[in-house]
């Protein structure tokens, strides 16, 4: 009966006991975790993303508390001494009271202070524009998905056409027509971004719309606005969050580029782009710090946001969920 080499049989046979079959399914369950904790956990799996988050938090704090931590108020002309201009990093001011850790620009402004204030403006403009674009784009996208038909076609066609043109061109056209100013920059940035949100939300909303909980809500005869905002929207959030994060970085970069080209914010409110532009001419004579340090600050901001956004995209991607 046995093949040579097999384990010996047990010998005695007992009567067959009825065996209840416990659920032999997959036993990979962990203790109950909320979606937020899972996402946070997945996010923290990447050290690079955590680094990005920490860096960005640091930058935002610097920007928020700029007046408190800057050695000098760079916009207060009374504090500037043109004799202090174009000093190297680490030099002292003429009256010996300040140390210019990152040097000064051609007007005698302390670069470190200018960077803090510049961050404020750059981040402020970027975030404001993104939030506005998010609100407008989401509303339009939801409207398109919810009402369908002609509304949908119209909104999406406009969005598609706009998305086929590069952002810088659209911004250029708008600024050439509207002129300069903070509000006009924000308008340009919003005009450039809204289509991303509209498209993303519409895509999610169309998928969610055919799911059962939506039918249930409709059966309960809930008003449309309630269905859309309380039921539909929260489920469309993950891709929106990813897009918004990345777009903040893009908005900041675009504003900096426009300011650099002289089309952006006016000189009275120098963002990082303008600081860099100011230093351009001095680079060839070796006074690199006027452009270099604001550039690094800009870089750090954008890179940190992109690191976070990248990881968020992987974490929130439903196709990569187990």
């Amino acid at each position: 009966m046995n093949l040579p080499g097999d384990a010996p049989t047990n010998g005695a046979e007992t009567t067959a006991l009825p065996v209840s079959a416990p659920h032999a399914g997959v036993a990979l369950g962990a203790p109950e975790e909320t979606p937020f904790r899972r996402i946070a956990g997945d996010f923290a799996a990447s050290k690079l993303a955590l680094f990005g988050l920490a860096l960005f938090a640091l930058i935002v704090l610097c920007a928020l508390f700029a007046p408190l931590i800057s050695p000098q108020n760079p916009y207060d002309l009374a504090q500037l001494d043109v004799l202090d201009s174009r000093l190297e990093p680490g030099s002292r001011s003429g009256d010996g009271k300040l140390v210019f850790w990152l040097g000064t620009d051609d007007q005698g402004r302390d670069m470190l202070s200018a960077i803090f204030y510049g961050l404020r403006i750059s981040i402020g403009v970027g975030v404001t524009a993104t939030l506005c674009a998010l609100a407008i784009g989401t509303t339009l996208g939801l409207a398109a998905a919810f009402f369908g038909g002609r509304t949908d076609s119209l909104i999406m066609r406009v969005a598609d056409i706009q998305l086929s043109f590069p952002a810088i061109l659209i911004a250029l056209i708008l600024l050439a027509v509207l002129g300069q100013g903070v509000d006009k920059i924000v308008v340009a940035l919003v005009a450039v971004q809204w289509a991303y949100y509209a498209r993303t939300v519409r895509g999610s909303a169309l998928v969610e719309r055919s799911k059962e909980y939506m039918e249930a809500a409709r059966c309960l005869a809930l008003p449309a606005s309630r269905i859309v905002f309380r039921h539909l929207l929260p489920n469309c959030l993950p891709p929106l969050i990813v897009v918004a994060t990345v777009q903040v970085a893009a908005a900041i970069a675009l504003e900096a580029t426009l300011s650099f080209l002289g089309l952006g914010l006016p000189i009275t409110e120098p963002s990082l782009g303008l600081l860099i532009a100011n230093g351009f001419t001095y680079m060839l004579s070796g006074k690199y710090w006027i452009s270099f340090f604001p550039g690094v600050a800009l870089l750090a901001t954008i890179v940190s946001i992109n690191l976070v956004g990248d990881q968020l995209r992987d974490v929130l991607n439903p196709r990569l969920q187990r």
Partner: protein
Amino acid sequence: MLVFIIRRLMQSAVVLFAMSLLVFVGVYAIGNPVDILINPNADQQDIERAIRGLGLDKPLWEQYLVFLRQAALGDLGKSFAFNVPALQLILERMPATLELATAAMLIAVVVGLPLGLWAGLKPDSFAGKSIMAGSILGFSLPTFWVGLMLIMVFSVYLGWLPSNGRGPTTDLFGVPVSFLSWDGIRHLVMPATNLALFNLALVIRLTRAGTREALLQDYVKFARAKGLSDARVIGVHVLKNISIPIVTVTGLQFGTLIAFAIVTETIFAWPGMGKLIIDSINVLDRPVIVAYLLIIVTLFIVINLVVDVLYSVLDPRVRLGDTKA
């Protein structure tokens, strides 16, 4: 296929009209057309004569038709600063910009494709991870800042490459190009690399994603089961599949390159359309601005159309339709 092209042409015409309307409204209705189209330094009599000459005293819709007719005839106004037709000014500068954009696109694809392929084949290796980290830097770094840094390193400190201008040009099929001479290449390298960075990052990421997806497909398993060498499996089977979406995206990006050339040309003083538009905006040479916008929009529409057609030609599933045997 023909139906497809015709339909796209019609769509493009609609978009072109819409854009021309937008530009027209922006310039004539929102801004003050007198300031925009007539040299503000002219005296009162000349201004009034110009107003009548340009038909600014006519109703708006009539002005639009005149505008369209002039545009169709190739007359987009005269530049204030140079006193030559705006269209001619732009067309003179176009070859420089196209040369820059083409060089940038070549760099992005020739360098990006192999790097992305490597990162896709060995995603967990040190090289693979570095390439991906590098690509994040590639599209995070603002183009203008990178340009400045390049100048600082290669022109100021090392003195290897010139910091501005275009090299000497020779005519190739009637178009002046500068890459045929060594000096021309020296001038072209930095601005082209600067412009290419964003796209390079994009190509790397696309190629990596495409490769990773392709490697999971059954046709790769089947190719290996046939005993084909790894080189052939990757070089022919995988590459041909991922190249189609990459070619189309890169093609579409060509338009973006031309737009971003504005920044690069400003930094490197490259005599192209982009520098022209910035200079014009700064001196308020509005006819040039209007002409530039219209030309760029047309260029974009043409690029989009060409890429769409290219896609349907390259992918046999689209080209030959789904004819079941």
